[in-house]
């Protein structure tokens, strides 16, 4: 696209194509293009070679629109509730987060609150054993809210700094399942007196426009604090997070870049945009 010498209709079509290819979606792609056109009117290019930087600047502008309330302080313990649709990468992301915090000296506890899926608890336990972190768990089939209640109390009793809660995958359109996760969060809020709770939505980077629906419904149910964009090591660009930030102001906190416990990085806007446009 950027080797073209003229900023003509074909240039704008090609730019729209690149954004669509990256799963940004038509409305957000058009918004980016309108934003760029307005910027060019205000301060025209001296050289078409400046175009890529201008486009990046416009997209970064969208990424900087985060507008979620900060996590309230007032507790030595921070609880992170990890949610998302089936197979997105929640359990693996939790292992990565637990490893990261544990390595930097925090005392970490994991709650195996996916009490539904086959071998979900075993999967958590294997990761926890590998990284040297404790797990609070009950039997498969038990009440997820009960596991969470025990986990918060255990975290306080053991002086844990961070409690990370693994939850069962659930489609955002399933009302009883969304009610269940709201109940899990209510239990945490009650036991934590509302302090220091972070709710993170895991989104698979290969997700298309459905990612916006996921973010909306999980946000309506839980007031999300951030997103973990998993599986960014594939060929998908994860552009749907631009539509999500634009619509809901929810920022991406971390990205997953592989299946190993080290494969987690803090979200970095410039690297993300470079990859999106490559």
């Amino acid at each position, binding site marked *: 696209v950027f080797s073209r010498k003229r900023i003509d209709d074909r240039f704008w079509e090609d730019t729209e*194509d690149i954004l*669509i*290819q*990256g*799963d940004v*979606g*038509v409305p957000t792609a058009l918004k980016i293009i309108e934003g760029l056109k307005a910027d060019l009117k205000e301060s025209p290019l001296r050289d078409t070679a400046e175009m890529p930087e201008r486009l990046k600047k416009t997209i970064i502008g969208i990424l900087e629109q985060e507008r979620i309330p900060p996590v309230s302080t007032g507790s030595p313990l921070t609880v992170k509730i990890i949610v998302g*649709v*089936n*197979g*997105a*990468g929640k359990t693996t992301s939790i292992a990565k987060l637990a490893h990261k915090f544990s390595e930097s000296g925090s005392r970490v506890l994991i709650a195996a609150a996916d009490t539904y*899926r*086959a*071998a979900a608890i*075993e*999967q958590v336990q*294997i*990761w926890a054993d590998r990284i040297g972190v404790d797990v609070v768990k009950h039997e498969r089939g038990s009440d997820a809210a009960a596991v969470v209640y025990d986990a918060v109390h255990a975290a306080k009793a053991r002086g844990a700094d961070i409690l990370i809660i693994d939850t069962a995958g659930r*489609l*955002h*359109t*399933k009302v009883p399942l969304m009610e269940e996760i709201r109940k899990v969060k209510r239990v945490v809020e009650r036991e934590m007196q509302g302090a220091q709770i972070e709710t993170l939505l895991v989104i*698979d980077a*290969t*997700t*298309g*426009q*459905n*990612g916006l*629906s996921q973010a909306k419904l999980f946000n309506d149910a839980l007031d999300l604090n951030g997103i973990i964009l998993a*599986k960014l*090591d*594939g*060929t*998908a*660009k994860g552009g*749907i997070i631009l539509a999500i930030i634009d619509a809901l102001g929810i920022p991406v906190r971390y990205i997953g870049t592989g*299946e190993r416990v080290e494969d987690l990085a803090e979200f970095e806007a410039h690297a993300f945009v470079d990859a999106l446009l490559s």
Partner: protein
Amino acid sequence: TLTNRLSDVFRNLRGRGRLSDKDVESAMREIKLALLEADVNYKVVKDFIAGVKEKAVGEEILKSLTPGQQVVKLVSDELTSLMGGSPSTLGLAGKPPTIIMLVGLQGTGKTSLAAKLGLMYKSEGKKVLLTAADVYRPAAVQQLEALGKELDIDVFKGEKDEPALKVAERSYRTADKEGYSILIMDTAGRLHIDESMMDELKSIKTALKPHSVLFVADAMTGQDAVNQALQFDESVGFDGVVLTKLDGDARGGAALSVKAVTGKPVMFVGTGEKPRDLEVFYPDRMASRIIG
């Protein structure tokens, strides 16, 4: 909906009697937006629009009292026929065991699908063996074993640290020797760009010569579905596709994209987490879901 958007486009037709080029362009744009919103790959959309445009300016549409509805029907019919027209079946091998190999990216629903297919065949009276050939993911083997136990279906698992290929080969010998008629192989999720993992699949396929390789894709996959499908088909080769998690609100445009670029049909859809949540794929139902 597309019907509403197209009625807006054609609202001012009456009295004019024929579609102007502008009307056609507006209609094509609405169709393009609907398909992109449904996650159909943008190149597949371009080809589709080019094909539909010619037919959209035909006599019947022009003479119709409801051209918007006619165009929607045209789009729906085109989508349906592109996705295979009518359901495709899996079939059985000439001599048992029929081997079905499940492949795809991480988290798409392969292990769950192994149990679902197992239940389907068991209900038909067949003797089924499931192979736990994902030797990487923590508790992957336990997951398949738990599912097998729930359904009373046998599961073959390897020894500690046994490579996937060896597990697959030994499971085949067991299936053959013990008279299983169906062998369903679950494999680890992997990226289409991971050469060594793609080689592993190639080696398993070469060794076992499965009757069917099924590419398992998540219904919410976006534009990347084309890259994934092309690479899997090129590196390994698959016979059919299973689209999972259709019990959500994902429009599932990947179904069209994958068929368009590989020619391989979607055969089943996953409609939930339980083993019974497996349905045959109906192109016409998928078409109306994609249109929205």
